């Protein structure tokens, strides 16, 4: 690996965040330290409400940390910038723009000439399987289609770093597999640095070079699992599901995540019964 690839892209140090609310401050995260190398694909799993989105929005520059600092390329992050693309949990694609104009928005802002813009947008629309829906408005699409538009919009703007917050949660299982493979392949090919939040352990292990597991709120990173690098472009579900090593890692991550999730009453009862027997 060359020096540029090893360079530290994002550095989160001593990050901790409290939200000011009517009832006083609410602690959203514990202390988080995190370094992401250029070209690295880092995935984050953790229980709902543990502070994943808060961390991502701080990295994006929308939340000013209560404590600690976030650097990108050695510069302190104080505001959003086009070098850090974001796919929001709420998607944030604009209802008053068609699929085509949403995806081309970043290029439009950057002043890319129309012909070039359209070419790139058309290619992306084909890639995400939305051909024929170019001139539809978001409310005419399914949830999964909207998520694909949101990912394509961020991708089209060609940022160095992509921060994604559960981008495939609403996509149907079949399409999801394809999108994950495609994303993995493209990220390796274009050497994007990716920070990817998900609730799916399989997704985290499949896509990540490194998986982070967060504790429950206020979340801290309780484990980091390095995923052995596959050959460039070699991420596909078939080999993943038959790879014993990968399945072992996925199981380990799952255990770590489950330990953080509060037990449901039924599970608690079962656990108690099991202890008694």
């Amino acid at each position, binding site marked *: 690996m060359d020096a540029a690839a090893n360079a530290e892209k994002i550095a989160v140090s001593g990050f901790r965040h409290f939200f000011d609310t009517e009832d006083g401050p609410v602690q959203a995260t514990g202390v988080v330290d995190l370094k992401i190398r250029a070209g690295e694909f880092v995935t984050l799993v953790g229980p709902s409400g543990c502070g994943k989105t808060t961390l991502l929005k701080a990295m*994006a520059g929308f939340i000013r940390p209560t404590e600690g600092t976030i650097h990108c390329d050695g510069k302190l992050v104080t505001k959003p910038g086009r070098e850090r693309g974001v796919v929001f949990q*709420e998607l944030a*694609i*604009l*209802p008053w723009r068609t699929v085509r104009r949403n995806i081309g928005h*970043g290029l439009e*802002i950057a002043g890319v000439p129309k012909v070039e813009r359209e070419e790139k947008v058309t290619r992306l629309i084909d890639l995400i399987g939305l051909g024929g829906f170019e001139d539809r408005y978001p409310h005419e699409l399914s949830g999964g289609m909207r998520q694909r538009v949101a990912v394509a919009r961020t991708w089209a703007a060609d940022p160095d770093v992509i921060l994604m917050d559960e981008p495939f949660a609403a996509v149907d299982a079949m399409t999801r597999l394809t999108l994950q493979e495609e994303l993995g392949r493209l990220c390796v090919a274009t050497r994007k640095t990716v920070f990817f939040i998900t609730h799916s352990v399989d997704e985290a292990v499949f896509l990540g070079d490194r998986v982070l597991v967060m504790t429950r709120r206020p979340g801290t990173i309780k484990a980091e699992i390095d995923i052995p690098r596959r050959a460039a472009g070699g991420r596909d579900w078939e080999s993943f599901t038959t790879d014993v090593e990968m399945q072992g890692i996925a199981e380990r991550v799952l255990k770590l995540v489950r330990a953080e999730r509060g037990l449901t009453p039924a599970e608690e009862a079962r656990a108690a019964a099991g202890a008694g027997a």
Partner: protein
Amino acid sequence: MSVQAAPIATTSTARRALGRLAWTLVPAAPFVIVTLIWIMATGILNPSKETLPPVTDVLASIKELALSGQLATNVVASLYRLLLGSILGIVTGLIGGVIVGLNRKLAESLNPVVVFFNAISGIVWLPLMITWLGIGNALAVFLIWNTVFFIVFQNAALGVQLVPEVYEQGVRALGGGRWQTMRSVILPGALPYILTGIRTGLGFGWRALIAAELVGAATGLGTMIFDAAEYHRSDIIVAGCLIIGVIAIVMDRWLLLPIERRTVRRWGLVADTEKE
């Protein structure tokens, strides 16, 4: 599409067309009903013409007003004031509303003065303004502006405040600056409220117009109605009201509704009953 699907499609298209026709006629029903009651009331109760003129008298006086050219003069005078006052009100209300909507602190500090002047907006100014501005266009335009301004202002401010923040964040993460978020997020996002403000504002603008003309103008539909009252010509009074109502419907249907259809309804921001 397969060939077999065609007949089914035709039936449902025909039925849908029929349904659509029915729905375009439904809005006329209340008018028809009221007219029938009116005809029956004059026929059965036989009230004096001053209390309730028969439909035929009103139609005759509309024709007479139209032929004499009085109708055109009055309509033009009224519309001129209404449009001038409304456009001023919409433009200033929009600018003010958007600025205040974007700035929570400013909104809070301006709140008392807005509540104060909103409570006395529109025709409340009439007695004072008639001595300041005299009788004529200026008086009517001021009253209309003042009425429309507050309605548009408050709706625009609310609309801007209610635009989900994440839309703005999305555009900023794409590299968009202040102007970009303004143009591609804030304004379209606030449009449902802005349009509501304009529609409501125009409705109230009519009231301000007529009030101003009742006392402070030499021409106009309000003046026409007021003069008719002095001569006990209730047929002209009713005719004037009908004309005002019809113009209001025409403006709403052919000016505002199409804008709404092409924007906020097309974008799925408000429920659209005509969705396929």
